[in-house]
């Protein structure tokens, strides 16, 4: 029953990382030049949440437009003189009525819709979901969980934050100039020909290119940190699963992102110079672009989901007070997913590629299902004989198991060739990836945010308010996206502002769900703001975790630990170890502890 000797006593002489010099300007200067991974993590968090807000607003815009189809209709009627008159009217241009002025004169409702959904996709993918967990939570947690003072290259870390901000500025600038209508995937030859007299598209592509650099540098930093800065005593299999997940993520970031770099560079050349590599009129191949793009963008969906899986491993183990079931299986399946992710990009192009390649990629795609399924089984098995407490983080954790298993299982018909020909580019795909990306990553992000909020900011939040928010998010999310599976199978294509009448009911349910979702997130925002302003002081270890971040104070001190921590127990040895800062009397250990 050894507690840790390293931090046995509380030293309150060293201030938290939040403390700074007096004066507004001095603090701003301190934050903008900091190399402290915690401050950088928090700065990432703020930027990422702002982007989430922007992208979310665009999503609400999309759902608002889809309440009604945009329809140009001809009405014949008999006027007062008895003659038949014909009038053509366009109805259902909801967004245009709401915000048409933003996009200038002469822009139709469909064009506005196209720009808004592109905005939603590009912001959510490049500026929110890729950096959300690794760069914000990961930056904060990775060194602390490893017992290190900082990441391997702190200045590089700050640089990658600035690169991220510059990338976002490019994106926002492109939106302010009127937005782009290419779709976030920038498929050629549409992206090289649309909006030909403007720099907006180039700006958006540049934004994605720049954000790629930020992603590479963060990944590189994390890989080196995990290799070189583990606390004494921490072997590879003593690392928390969150670290394994971040490690696998970082590998993908390092290896996949350069390919999108060259792809977007070629796209820019193609657009401004017509070099012809993706241009069919010069003999180039437009589908080659899709290969280039998805070689990055498929692995990158695992950049989005793997850290989420890491969070879920932590949250479930801590709140079930249970050793995670099949530690090695989960750790290796993270690496397995990272490896397999490079083999399966072709399933995004089944309808455009040669038959042989389609069959090959279909077979390989099923491989991804295996490590994911292993993780699901292991998480559920971890709950067995636990001591499960339902707090907000755990609620989100269980919610993740629900939504992500729907997301994963609905991926099976998309990997199956015969059914994919029907479902590809339909609303089914939209629903599927929202169940994995939103139901997976965003919900895991919320779980992580609630789990580590006390650690990051030193304040507790209102559990009741947060639970209300979680319930609203759960209802709203399922209402929004479950309907879309049926839209897809019945024949509703993606990216449509106009649709046939029979789809309207389902679209309206979906739009109603998106409003509930919005309210849910606003509740969370309120709870967080209230926590920052008037939350109770958080204890060092509110949930009874065993990983190293719970050994230091909340919020952590400047250099994370008073003394270099020495690892003496595994991250999930709840059966044999009393968590740091906990009273052994409050924490009964099993009688036959240590047998397993």
């Amino acid at each position, binding site marked *: 029953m050894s507690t840790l000797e390293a931090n046995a006593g509380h030293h309150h002489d060293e201030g938290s990382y939040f403390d700074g010099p007096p004066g507004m300007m001095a603090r701003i200067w301190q934050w903008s030049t900091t190399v402290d991974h915690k401050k950088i993590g928090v700065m990432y968090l703020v930027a990422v949440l702002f982007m989430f807000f922007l992208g979310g607003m665009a999503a609400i815009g999309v759902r608002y437009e889809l309440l009604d189809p945009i329809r140009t209709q001809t009405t014949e009627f008999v006027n007062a003189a008895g003659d038949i008159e014909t009038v053509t009217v366009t109805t259902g241009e909801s967004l245009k009525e709401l915000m048409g002025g933003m996009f200038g004169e002469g822009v139709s409702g469909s064009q506005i819709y196209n720009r808004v959904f592109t905005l939603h996709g590009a912001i959510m993918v490049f500026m929110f979901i890729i950096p959300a967990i690794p760069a914000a939570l990961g930056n904060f947690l990775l060194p602390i969980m490893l017992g*290190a*003072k*900082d990441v*391997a*290259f*702190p200045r590089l870390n700050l640089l990658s934050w600035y690169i991220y901000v510059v990338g976002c500025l490019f994106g926002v600038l492109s939106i302010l100039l009127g937005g782009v209508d290419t779709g976030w995937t920038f498929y050629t030859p549409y992206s090289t020909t649309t909006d030909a007299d403007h720099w907006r598209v180039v700006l958006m592509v540049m934004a994605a290119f720049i954000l790629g650099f930020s992603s*590479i540098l963060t990944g*590189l*930093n994390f*890989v*080196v940190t995990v*290799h*070189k*800065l583990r606390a004494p005593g921490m072997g590879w299999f003593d690392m928390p699963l969150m670290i394994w997940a971040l490690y696998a993520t970082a590998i993908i970031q*390092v*290896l*996949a*992102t*350069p*390919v999108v*770099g*060259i*792809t977007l*560079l*070629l796209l820019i*050349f*193609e657009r401004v*110079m*017509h*070099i*012809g*590599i993706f*241009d069919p009129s*010069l*003999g*180039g*191949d437009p589908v*080659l672009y899709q*290969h*280039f793009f998805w070689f990055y963008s498929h692995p990158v969906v695992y950049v989005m989901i793997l850290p989420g899986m890491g969070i879920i491993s932590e949250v479930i183990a801590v709140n079930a007070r249970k050793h995670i079931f099949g530690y090695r299986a989960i750790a290796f399946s993270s690496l397995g997913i990272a490896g397999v992710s490079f083999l399966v990009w072709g399933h995004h192009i089944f309808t455009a590629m040669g038959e042989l390649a389609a069959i090959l990629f279909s077979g390989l795609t099923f491989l991804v299902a295996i490590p994911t399924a292993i993780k699901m089984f292991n998480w559920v098995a971890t709950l067995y004989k636990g001591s499960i407490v339902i707090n907000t983080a755990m609620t989100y954790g269980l919610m993740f198991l629900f939504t992500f298993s729907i997301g994963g299982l609905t991926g099976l018909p998309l990997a199956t060739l015969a059914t994919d020909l029907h479902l590809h580019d339909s609303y089914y795909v939209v629903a599927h990836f929202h169940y994995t990306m939103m139901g997976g990553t965003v919900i895991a992000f919320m779980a992580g945010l609630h789990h580590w909020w006390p650690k990051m900011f030193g304040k507790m939040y209102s559990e009741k308010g947060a639970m209300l928010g979680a319930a609203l998010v759960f209802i709203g999310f399922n209402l929004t996206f479950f309907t879309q599976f049926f839209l897809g199978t019945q024949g509703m294509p993606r990216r449509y502002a106009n649709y046939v009448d029979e789809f309207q009911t389902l679209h309206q349910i979906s739009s109603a769900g998106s409003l509930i979702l919005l309210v849910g997130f606003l509740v969370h925002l309120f709870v967080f703001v209230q926590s920052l302003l008037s939350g109770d002081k958080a204890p060092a270890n509110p949930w009874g975790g065993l990983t190293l971040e719970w050994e230091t104070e909340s919020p952590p001190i400047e*250099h994370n630990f008073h003394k270099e921590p020495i690892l003496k127990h595994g991250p999930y040895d709840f059966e044999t170890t009393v968590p740091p800062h906990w009273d052994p009397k409050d924490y009964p250990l099993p009688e036959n502890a240590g047998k397993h």
Partner: protein
Amino acid sequence: MTMIDTDTSGVPARILKSPMHWRNAKHQSHWRSGDEEFDAAKFGMWLFLSTEVLLFAGIFCGYAVFRMLYPEAWANGSHSLDWRMGAANTAILLFSSWTAANAVRLCQLDKQFWFKINILITILCAIAFVAIKFTFEYGIKLPEGKAPGTFFSYPYATDPHEPLWWSLYYIGTGIHAFHVIIGAFLFAFVLWRAHRYQAYGPTQYTLVENSALYWHIVDLIWIFLFPLLYLIH
């Protein structure tokens, strides 16, 4: 870490006492030792080099795919290049790679003068490479109309897909030349610091080592670009 006790009699006290001098440099506080920091930096550099390789993979992939589709255009394109210029540039890069490796070795042995000379030669080689590329290759091809994509207007073209070959040629060699220029700036920075502070020595040569590694990968990529563009037809 071995401390090589070198002769410092000729070095002015101003430089010896400078915090930038290699004897006075300290590792960052989150590392346990300078050794670990060096290892980590090198490992990080290797990861970065792998991203460079993957960046060029896009160009190699485009090359391979279109070579498969339009072998005629590719043969014509490769015949239009002057192998002598390519070979000269290959020799220059190989030689500069050697001087870069030499620079690392001399730095490890604290032979400051020869170390700087080697860095200088490397920079000069970089300049020569870019100069040959721009004057004897681009400078001759472009006015002839052998330009990328729609700028292509070479009157003797026989295959409609030759513009694609030139696109890939200019982008591949252009991005490579850009890397060469970055490498030259990197070495110039090293040279300046070495000259001003004697910042690199047996215990402190991370940047030298990493710049050299970067330079070698630029060389490696050219080793493949050269036969692909100039020799295979």
